[in-house]
């Protein structure tokens, strides 16, 4: 038992990124009625400032890394990697939201507050080392994202997206919780390290069947958040109905944080049972890739297409998880970072072209964009090529490391099927490129306004990051490898 419940300064420092985000979010909510009349740019600036401060706090926390709050949090390289990733995604989303909120004449204060809360939840998930903490982080992130998905509450598609996201999300959470309850019942602990110890050395060992059932239920809960089979059905509807910047956010931030939790739980607590869950994750990875890629082939709505492609990409990351090795964890981390950059960038272009009320979101609407806006088209091309996995982009090295880790773990069949899947995936991305470059400009491209400076900055950051990781992958691969050392 701890002798004092007063947190030490070091513990405060280790949770500082979340504190900064939550305090800034609360401040924005207080200021919302006061600033109502004075332009809407202020909230965006405040939100971006808070995210920048959280980045600094993350680095400061990493300098003084270690456990905090009776080991409920573990601030290590892994936590810092994912904290930087989700806060970065939050920053890009906040940038994209500035022109979006102005265009839709939506209330900016609440939006930015919810965005900050959601990022705070994800950042907490990245550092959580204990099932209660993971659950709380997951719910802070999810509840805020439910509202963000339906932020335009007069819009019928947005409210439908929010309802589906909310109902299925809560359903999945209940499964996760029931799994947690059973794990607690079998091991007497919710701390990941103690669970691992209990599953390895306890005498008598807990029933294998019950452990498998509990692990399956926790897998179900997390599979929803990362949108892999068999809990991927919500993704296309939600991405299509949600505001474009939010869809980009959902495909990168919550997904990365949920994968962080996924890696931590399955590679530490459930590592003793790896033989059993690896078989199931193998199938989940394969079906997610195949289903995502083939369904994306026939989509005409670009947000829906990107949603199916996001299911496929989550499948690629699962391939790395199936390897359950240090290299696999590092590859998954690299892939998530690369995916966040290229997908948020792609959604930024979609949000830019869509106009008020998300009017132009068909693939056909991109016809001739290369003629009317060569800059935006070129950046979109970079993101699409990276999503295909063409060198020298981040997507290429992401896939390369994932499949290399899979091969090292003797997953030859899954690697071959994954590579075939990438070839299928190339088709629908190339289709967008062809429409963009080979067609005469249509109504949407001809009437597209110049991108706002905020959109421009976000696009350039994403494109620069995508190319930088493509020519210099060791920039973050090295830290990912060091961070993944927690495995065994």
């Amino acid at each position, binding site marked *: 038992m701890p002798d004092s419940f007063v947190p030490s300064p070091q513990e405060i420092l280790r949770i500082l990124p979340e504190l900064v985000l939550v305090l800034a979010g609360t401040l924005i909510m207080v200021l919302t009625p006061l600033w109502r009349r004075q332009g809407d740019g202020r909230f965006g600036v405040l939100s971006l400032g808070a995210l920048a401060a959280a980045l600094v706090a993350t680095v400061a926390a990493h300098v003084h890394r270690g456990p905090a709050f009776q080991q409920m949090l573990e601030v290590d390289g892994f936590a810092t990697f994912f904290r930087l990733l989700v806060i970065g995604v939050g920053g890009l989303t906040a940038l994209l939201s500035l022109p979006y909120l102005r265009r839709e004449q939506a209330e900016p204060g609440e939006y930015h507050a919810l965005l900050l809360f959601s990022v705070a939840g994800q950042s907490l998930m990245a550092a959580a080392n204990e099932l*209660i903490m993971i*659950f*709380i982080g997951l*719910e802070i992130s999810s*509840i805020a994202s*439910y*509202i963000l998905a*339906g932020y335009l*509450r*007069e*819009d*019928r*598609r947005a*409210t*439908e*997206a*929010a*309802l*589906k996201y*909310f*109902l299925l999300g*809560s*359903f999945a*959470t*209940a499964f996760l*919780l*029931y799994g*947690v*309850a*059973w794990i*607690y*019942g079998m091991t*007497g*602990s*919710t701390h990941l390290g103690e669970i691992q110890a209990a599953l390895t050395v306890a005498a008598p060992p807990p029933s294998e069947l019950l452990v498998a059932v509990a692990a399956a239920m926790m897998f179900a809960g997390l599979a929803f958040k990362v949108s892999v089979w068999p809990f991927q059905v919500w993704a*296309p*509807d939600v991405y*299509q*109905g949600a505001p474009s910047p939010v869809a980009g956010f959902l495909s990168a931030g919550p997904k990365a944080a949920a994968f962080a939790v996924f890696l931590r739980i399955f590679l530490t607590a459930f590592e003793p049972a790896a033989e059993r869950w690896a078989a199931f994750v193998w199938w989940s990875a394969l079906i997610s890739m195949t289903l995502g890629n083939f*369904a994306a082939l026939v989509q005409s709505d670009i947000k829906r297409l990107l949603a199916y492609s996001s299911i496929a990409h989550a499948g690629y990351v699962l391939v790395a998880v199936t390897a359950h090795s240090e290299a696999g964890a590092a590859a998954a981390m690299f892939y998530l970072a690369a995916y966040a950059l290229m997908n948020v960038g792609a959604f930024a272009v979609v949000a830019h072209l869509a106009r008020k009320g998300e009017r132009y979101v068909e693939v056909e609407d991109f016809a001739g964009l290369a003629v009317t806006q060569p800059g935006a088209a070129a950046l979109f091309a970079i993101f699409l090529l990276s999503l295909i996995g063409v060198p020298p982009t981040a997507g290429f090295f992401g896939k390369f490391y994932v499949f290399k880790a899979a091969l090292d773990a003797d997953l030859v069949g899954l690697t071959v099927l994954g590579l075939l899947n990438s070839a299928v995936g190339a088709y629908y991305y190339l289709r967008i490129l062809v429409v963009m470059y080979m067609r005469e400009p249509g109504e949407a491209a001809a009437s597209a306004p110049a991108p706002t400076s905020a959109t421009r900055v976000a696009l350039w950051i994403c494109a620069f990051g995508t190319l930088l990781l493509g020519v210099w992958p060791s920039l973050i691969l090295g830290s990912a490898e060091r961070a993944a050392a927690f495995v065994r």
Partner: protein
Amino acid sequence: MNAVPLSWYLILSAVLFSLGVAGFLVRRNIITVFMSIELMLNAVNLSFVTFSYQFKQADGHIFTFFVMVVAAAEAAVGLAIILALVRTRRTLEVDEVNLLKF
């Protein structure tokens, strides 16, 4: 004191959870679907309390409080979303919420 074996509570919890899952999958009214989720969460709470009693620990009880707080937050957000939905389309049937599909 301990007239009722602890395993009965766990069985009751499993039955309640299954009823919640069945309700979620079968019922067509959004409010009923939402109530099914709450039933699942409370079934989980029952399990936590039982295990906690068995281990003579406080952890499970504390977890129950967290689950209740989160469930309350979820209920607030969920009802708000349902309200927004009813305002835009005047229905509470899950099957009629079908604008977005393949």
